[in-house]
C-alpha cells in the first residue's frame, strides 16, 4: 500500500443517558413496548413546541471538556429539513454552524507487537461535537413498514473526527477509546446493540504524500466496533483496487453488510439532500459562561489512558493487567480500593483480573452484585503476603468468599487453612526427613546444594502442604549444619 494512503474520518453518534428526551420530558428508554415513550411533542402533533433538556447540555459540555474541546460561549439550534417516516416533524433540531464544542482530540492506543505489550498512543483530532435529537425506529416488512417512536427525540451527541486516521486499526482504536471515555464520564452506556453508539465512516485514498483529499465515500450501517474495522478495511481495499487499475472513485454513500463483509451503493451524489438549514425560531440560544464550565470540569473523571499511566507510574501495574482494568471504570475503582487497602497493588491486580473476573464470568454476575468487597479482597491479599496462608489455600478461601461474602479471616479459621505448623512439629519432621535419607544428608554436607531438595518433599507431605517453604528451608539447613 506504500504508494497510496487511506484517509478516514468518523462521524459518531452517542445517545446521551438522560432520563427524559432532548426537547420534551417524555421518558427515554430501550426495549419498552412500542410507542409508550411518546407525548404530543415527540409525535409532532399540531401546535407542539420544543423545550431543551438541561442535563443533555451539561453532558455535552462535560464530553467536550473531557476531550479537550473549546466550548462555544454561545451556540444555537437549527432545523435540518428533510422528509422521512421516522422523523416526526420532518425536520431534525440540530446544530449547524454554531456547534457547542469545537476541536479537541481522542487519545487512542494501537495494537502492540504482542497481546501483552502496549501499542503506540496517538491523538486523533476532532472537528466538532454537537447535540441533536434522535429519530424513531422503522421496522420493515414485506409490503409495509411499522414505525415505533420510542427512540424519537432522545438526545444524541454527534462527534466528528478530523479526517486524520489512516488505517482500520486506528478507526477501531478511536471508537474503543471514545466509548471508554463516554462510559467514564457517565455520558452514555455506549451499547451498540441498543443503538447507543453509532458510527459512519468517510473514507478516501490518495497518493502517499499528497495533501489534497481524494473523493470520499460514506460508509453506513457499521453496527459494531468490529464491523467498523472490517468495513473500513474492506472499503480501503475496494478503493485501492479501483485506483490501481486506473479507475475513478465515485462520491457515494454505501451500506455495509457485516455478514457478507461487502458494501453496496445506497445513494449517489446526485441524490444529496438540500437540508435548507435555518435557526430554529422556537428555541433560544445557549450561553456557556466560565462558572458553568468550572462546575462541570469539577465533575470530569480521570481519563482512561491517564489512569493507565498513573497505575503504571504509581503502582507499577503492568499492561497485561491495566489493559483489562482500564476499560472498565467500575473494575478499576474496585482494584484501586483493594490495592490501597492491601498495600500490595500488583498482587491485588492479579487477583482482580484473574480470579475475580473468572468467578464473575462463570456466575454471569455483574461486578455490582459481587459479594466480595474490595476491602475483603485486600485482607486476603495481606494474608498471603504475610505468609499466614499459602497461595493454594488462598484460592480456596476466595472461592468461598465469592459464594458467601464471608470475610477471609473467618474462612481461614473455620477451615483451618493457616500456613505454617508448630515449630516443634516442623523440627521433628525435618529431623525425620534427614534421618530417612542419610545419603542426601552426606551429599549436602559435602557441598551439593541441590541435595536439600530431597528432604523438602517428605517434610511438606508430613505438613500436609501447610509448611512455609522458607521456614522449611531454614530449619533443614540449621539441622544439617548441626551435623
Amino acid at each position: 500500500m506504500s504508494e497510496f494512503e487511506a484517509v478516514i474520518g468518523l462521524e459518531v453518534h452517542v445517545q446521551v443517558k438522560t432520563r427524559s428526551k432532548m426537547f420534551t420530558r417524555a421518558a427515554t428508554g430501550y426495549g419498552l413496548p412500542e410507542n409508550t415513550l411518546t407525548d404530543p411533542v415527540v409525535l409532532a402533533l399540531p401546535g407542539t413546541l420544543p423545550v431543551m433538556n438541561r442535563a443533555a447540555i451539561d453532558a455535552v459540555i462535560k464530553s467536550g471538556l473531557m476531550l479537550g474541546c473549546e466550548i462555544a460561549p454561545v451556540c444555537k439550534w437549527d432545523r435540518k429539513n428533510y422528509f422521512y417516516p421516522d422523523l416526526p416533524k420532518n425536520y431534525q433540531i440540530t446544530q449547524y454552524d454554531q456547534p457547542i464544542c469545537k476541536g479537541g482530540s481522542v487519545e487512542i492506543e494501537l495494537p502492540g507487537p504482542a497481546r501483552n505489550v502496549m501499542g503506540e498512543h496517538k491523538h486523533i483530532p476532532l472537528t466538532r461535537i454537537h447535540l441533536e435529537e434522535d429519530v424513531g425506529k422503522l421496522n420493515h416488512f414485506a409490503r409495509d413498514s411499522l414505525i415505533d417512536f420510542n427512540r424519537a427525540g432522545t438526545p444524541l451527541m454527534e462527534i466528528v473526527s478530523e479526517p486524520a486516521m489512516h488505517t482500520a486499526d486506528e478507526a477501531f482504536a478511536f471508537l474503543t477509546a471514545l466509548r471508554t471515555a463516554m462510559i467514564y464520564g457517565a455520558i452514555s452506556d455506549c451499547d451498540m446493540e441498543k443503538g447507543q453508539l453509532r458510527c459512519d465512516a468517510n473514507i478516501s485514498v490518495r497518493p502517499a504524500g499528497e495533501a489534497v483529499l481524494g473523493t470520499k465515500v460514506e460508509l453506513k450501517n457499521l453496527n459494531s466496533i468490529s464491523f467498523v474495522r472490517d468495513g473500513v478495511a474492506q472499503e480501503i481495499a475496494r478503493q485501492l483496487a479501483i485506483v490501481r487499475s486506473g479507475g475513478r472513485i465515485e462520491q457515494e454513500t454505501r451500506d455495509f453488510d457485516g455478514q457478507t463483509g461487502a458494501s453496496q451503493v445506497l445513494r449517489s451524489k446526485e441524490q444529496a439532500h438540500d437540508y435548507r438549514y435555518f435557526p430554529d425560531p422556537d428555541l433560544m440560544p445557549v450561553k456557556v459562561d466560565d462558572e458553568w464550565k468550572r462546575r462541570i470540569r469539577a465533575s470530569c473523571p480521570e481519563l482512561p489512558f491517564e489512569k493507565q499511566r498513573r497505575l503504571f507510574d504509581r503502582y507499577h501495574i503492568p499492561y497485561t493487567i491495566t489493559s483489562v482494568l482500564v476499560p472498565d471504570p467500575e473494575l478499576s475503582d474496585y482494584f484501586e480500593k483493594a490495592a490501597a487497602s492491601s498495600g500490595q497493588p500488583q498482587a491485588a491486580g492479579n487477583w482482580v483480573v484473574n480470579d475475580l473476573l473468572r468467578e464473575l464470568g462463570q456466575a454471569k454476575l455483574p461486578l455490582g452484585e459481587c459479594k466480595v468487597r474490595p476491602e475483603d479482597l485486600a485482607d486476603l491479599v495481606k494474608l498471603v503476603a504475610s505468609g499466614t496462608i499459602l497461595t493454594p489455600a488462598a484460592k480456596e478461601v476466595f472461592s468461598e468468599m465469592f459464594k458467601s461474602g464471608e470475610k477471609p479471616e473467618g474462612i481461614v479459621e473455620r477451615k483451618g487453612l493457616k500456613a505454617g505448623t508448630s515449630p516443634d512439629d516442623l523440627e521433628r519432621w525435618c529431623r525425620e526427613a534427614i534421618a530417612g535419607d542419610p545419603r542426601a544428608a552426606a551429599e549436602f554436607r559435602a557441598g551439593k546444594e541441590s541435595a536439600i531438595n530431597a528432604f523438602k518433599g517428605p517434610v511438606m507431605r508430613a505438613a500436609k502442604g501447610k509448611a512455609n517453604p522458607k521456614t522449611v528451608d531454614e530449619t533443614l539447613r540449621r539441622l544439617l549444619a548441626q551435623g
Partner: protein
Amino acid sequence: MESETFYGSIAGLAARLDGRKLSAVELAQCLIRRTKAVDPAVRAFNSFDEADALAQARASDERRAAGKPLGPLDGIPIGIKDVIAVEGQPLTASSRMLAGFVSPYDSTAARKLREAGAICWGRLNLDEFAMGSSTENSAFGATRNPWDLERVPGGSSGGSAAALAAGEACAALGSDTGGSIRMPAAFCGVVGLKPTYGLVSRYGLIAFASSLDQIGPFARTVEDAAMVLNAIAGHDPHDSTSFRVEIPDYRSEIRKRSGPWKLGIPKEYFGEGLDPEIGAAVEAAIRFYRERGCEIKEVSLPHTRYGIGAYYIIATAECSSNLARYDGIRYGHRSKDATDALDLYFRSRAEGFGAEVKRRIILGTYVLSSGYHDAYYLRAQKVRTLIRRDFLNAYLEVDALLTPISPVLPFKAGEKAADPLAMYLCDIYTIGVNLAGLPGISLPCGFSKSGLPIGLQLIGQPYKEAELLAIASAYECAHDWHTRHPDMDKSIAAWNAKTQARASR
C-alpha cells in the same frame, strides 16, 4: 331583550351572573339560539359541540351554587379559533389535511381560560392554516361579514371576528401572524388585540410562522379584551419563546392611567393607496386625541415599504418547515392512492392542502433552498432588524403609534381571490407590528357611507399592554362605535334575496 345578552360585554354579563340575574346555562342557551339563527348565513363556526358547551356551563353554575372559588371569566363562553388546541375537540386549521383530527391535549391558552372558569366555545373558522386575509381560503367554506354577507369578514381569524359581530359568542381567541386578529376585528367592528410576542404562550397553537405568531383576544370592549388577556397571558414552561414578565391586572391598570400621551403618526402609513373614508375616520381619531390633550407627532418608519417583502420571506420560510409535519403518516389526511411511502407524502400533501397553503410552502421552501438562503432569508431577517429599529427609535419620542389597519374597506367575496399579491398588500399596516414583535390593538372608529366598519390601530411598546389598553380605552369611552351591531335580520334578508335572485337567473 335577548340581544342585551348575546351582545353583552363580559364585564356586564359577569355582573349579571354574579348577581344571579342570569345563569351560565341560560347565557349558553341564548348564544346557542342566536348561533342557530344566524350562523347558517354567517358560517363563523366549523363545529360546535353543544353537549360539551352546556356541560361546561352547568359546571360553572354548580361551582357558583356550591360557593366554590370562581374564576374571573366563570361561565363566559369564549369562541376558539380552530388552530388552538382544546383537548377532546376537533383541531382542523380549516384544512382538509386535518379534517377529523381530535386533539389529545390542551393548548396552554385553552387550559388557562378553563382555569379562569371560561367556557371553550366551539371551533371558529379561519383561512386554512391561518394563511389569508379574508377567510375565503377555508377548506370548509368561507365565513361572511355580518355587516354585509356579500363581503368578507377579513382573515385569517374571520370566524372569530364574525362570531362576535353577529352575537354568537361573548369573546373569542384568534391568532395574529401578520394582522390576522387586527384586520378582521376592523372589518367586523369589534376589538382585537395582538399581544407583544412572547406574552401569550404558543403551546397548542398550530404554528404558521413561529417568530411572528401570537394568540390574542377578540372582544366587544377594551375592558373585555383586558380581562381575556389577563386570563391567557404569562410565562409558560412549554413554550421556550414565552417571556417571564410580570402580568399586571390590566383592567385596573386601565382605570389608573388617563394620559395624556404622546402619540406618533407614521407618515408612511398615510400615503397613497389608503381608502379616503378610512383615512378620514382615522384622522378624526387623531383629532380626538389632540383635543384630549395628547401630543401628536409625525414620525417616520422609513423601512415600512419593505415590510411585505420581508414578511412574506420570513413567514413562508418558517411555515414551509412548520407544515412539513402534515404528511398523513402519524395523523391527518392520508392519500388512498399512494404506492410507497415517498408517494404518500406527495399525494397526501397535494390532496390535503389548499392553493394558498401550497403557494406559501413552495415560496418558503424556495427562499430557504440551497443557493437562495443568503439572498432571501438572511437578507429579510436583516431588513427585519431595521424595521424593528424604526419602531424602537420612534418610541424614544412617543408612547404609542396610531395608524389605520387596512388600506381597503371590507371587500366583496371573490374580489381579491385571483390575485395573491393584491391580497398580501392589504397587510401593509399590520405586518410591521409582527416583524417587530410589538403589541397592537384594533378598535372600531367609524363606518363607511355604505355602513361598513372602519377600525384604527394603536401600536404599543413591548410588554406595555397596560398603557396600550389605557390609550385605547380613552378613545372607546368617548365614542359609541363599539355599541353598534349589525342588524342580522336585515343582513340575512338581503343575502337571501340576492341568493334567490342569482339562483333564478
